[in-house]
């Protein structure tokens, strides 16, 4: 944790332009690259305007937390980042989401390609009803990797990466459903690591887990940060404070505030943020 905070100091010497509301948009001065640069992004479910004019600049090798009351659009936003939100047929969008400089909303952008770069972990652990091995090998296999030796390597590395190798190495051929919830969730993270994504999106990955498992996943997120950019949605403000570098506060489909996590939790700029964080609502 100490190490983490040290790193973040780098980030803090950005200059707030007065014209801009959010810190994230403006820290061009830092040494980190943007992974997701969202510009004036809007999203509708049918007539329901779920995301309104979102502007966010998410940097690489950081943990960005998204918090906000239920229904504020957190899941919608994070799913927009890998275009999973398009699985809902009534969705319409406009604006830009640039992933490493390219607008993913462009019709020429293949979603499959995007999603191999941008992995996702879901709220409820959702392993496939297959063996642990097959779960992890799923991603590489669909992308055409058939070599058994390479697959073995990937599986081991991914499981180690998700800090679950020791627990399951003796039963790779057992069904993943035999594992506990917390283990399943780490299997899902490992599955996601297996295709070596650049960014990992996590939608309330611990909300279905017990405290011990939550702790493990939180630790894991801390570790992964060195190699991946992580965007995590959470209900749990303590969690956001514990593990994230930056925090975005969503309310009614808008970004109220986006800043370094310690700033948000110590001296939020917006009254609504303060109210929310202090538990005065939602």
């Amino acid at each position, binding site marked *: 944790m100490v190490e983490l905070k040290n790193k973040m100091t780098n980030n803090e010497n950005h200059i707030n332009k007065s014209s801009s509301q959010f810190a994230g948009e403006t820290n061009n001065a830092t040494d980190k690259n943007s992974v997701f640069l969202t510009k004036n992004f809007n999203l509708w479910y049918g007539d329901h305007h779920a995301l309104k004019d979102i502007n966010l600049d998410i940097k690489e090798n950081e943990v960005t937390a998204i918090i906000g009351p239920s229904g504020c659009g957190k899941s919608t936003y994070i799913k927009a980042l890998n275009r999973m939100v398009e699985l809902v047929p009534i969705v319409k969008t406009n604006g830009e989401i640039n992933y490493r400089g390219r607008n993913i909303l462009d019709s020429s952008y293949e979603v499959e*390609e995007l999603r*191999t*770069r941008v992995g996702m972990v879901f709220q409820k652990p959702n392993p496939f009803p297959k063996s642990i091995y097959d779960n992890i090998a799923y991603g*590489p296999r669909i*992308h*055409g*990797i058939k070599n058994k030796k*390479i697959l073995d*390597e*990937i599986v081991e*590395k991914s499981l*180690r*990466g998700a800090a679950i190798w020791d627990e399951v190495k003796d039963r790779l051929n057992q069904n993943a459903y035999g594992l506990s919830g917390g283990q399943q969730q780490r299997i899902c993270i490992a599955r996601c690591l*297996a*295709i*070596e*994504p*650049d960014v990992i999106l996590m939608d309330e990955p611990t909300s279905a887990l017990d405290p011990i498992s939550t702790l493990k996943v939180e630790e894991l997120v801390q570790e992964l940060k*060195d*190699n*991946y950019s992580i965007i995590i949605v959470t209900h749990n403000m303590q969690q956001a404070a514990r593990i994230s570098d930056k925090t975005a506060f969503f309310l009614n489909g808008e970004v109220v505030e986006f800043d370094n996590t310690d700033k948000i939790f110590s001296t939020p700029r917006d009254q609504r943020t303060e109210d929310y964080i202090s538990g005065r609502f939602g």
Partner: protein
Amino acid sequence: MASQGLGREHSVQDLIAKSRDKKGKRFVEKLMPIVLVTIALISVLTTVGILFTLIFETFEFFQRVSITDYLFGTEWLPFSGSEPLFGVLPLVLGTLKIAVIAACVAVPLGIAAAIYLSEYATDKTRRIIKPVLEVLAGVPTIVYGFFALTFVTPMLQELIPSLKIFNALSPGIVVGIMILPMIASLSEDAMSSVPNSIREGALALGATKLEVSLKVVLPAALSGIIASVVLAVSRAIGETMIVSLAGGATPTFDLNVTGSIQTMTAYIVQVSSGDAGYGTTIYYSIYAVGFTLFIFTLIMNLLAQYISKRFREEY
């Protein structure tokens, strides 16, 4: 990027990039929806085929017999040498008699069995009884036909001396037995899919199992149950061999269930396995009757869909 991280010999993303852009994958992706929609259209084509088959010959039939005589006539005497009469109502009535009797047997018993299986029986009992019931549904209908004729009818005759050897009662009951598993099984499915949490909610209020079943589970599963009943009754209407064997061949226009009757299906079998000449009015009449039967089941199904949509409960 990510690959530098864990010090890999193989970078997965590189491997992926290498195998990407195989044309085949994208081609399959484009092709499959087309293949599948074509397959899905076969079911539509089947309906078109049925309509085409039926309408074509029915049209010929109505060249010879007036449509009003057919629809409103109360006498069905196609073989009468002197004056053949083609009033379909006796056949319709015969069909309805069977359907009603069958429903009277199968609906209460089927739903009762479904409630027992889904709400009272242990898992083990259910796992044994349900498949056995399904065997009952799988018994070929001609087996049932002989069962009705050689077992149920004589037994009923002991109880009701005036019962004729051919009657509506016996095949009606046996058709009911045949469709009972369908109602029991499908209703049980519908009731089992009511989440347990809802049951627990009611039990925790001090409800008895009976109250849970009748006031919570049954209403929640109503759409599924109605669907099962309608499907089953529709089968009863379309049932052929049992009524051909045990129902007789006397189209009558009365409400008597102890005497010989004839259903629409039985008439079709009678003619298609009988000696009526090809190209005669009688020959065309089976298509008219088949068409009537088709319309009948169609209306019933539409009605059922409407009802089950209106009563659908979300959970």
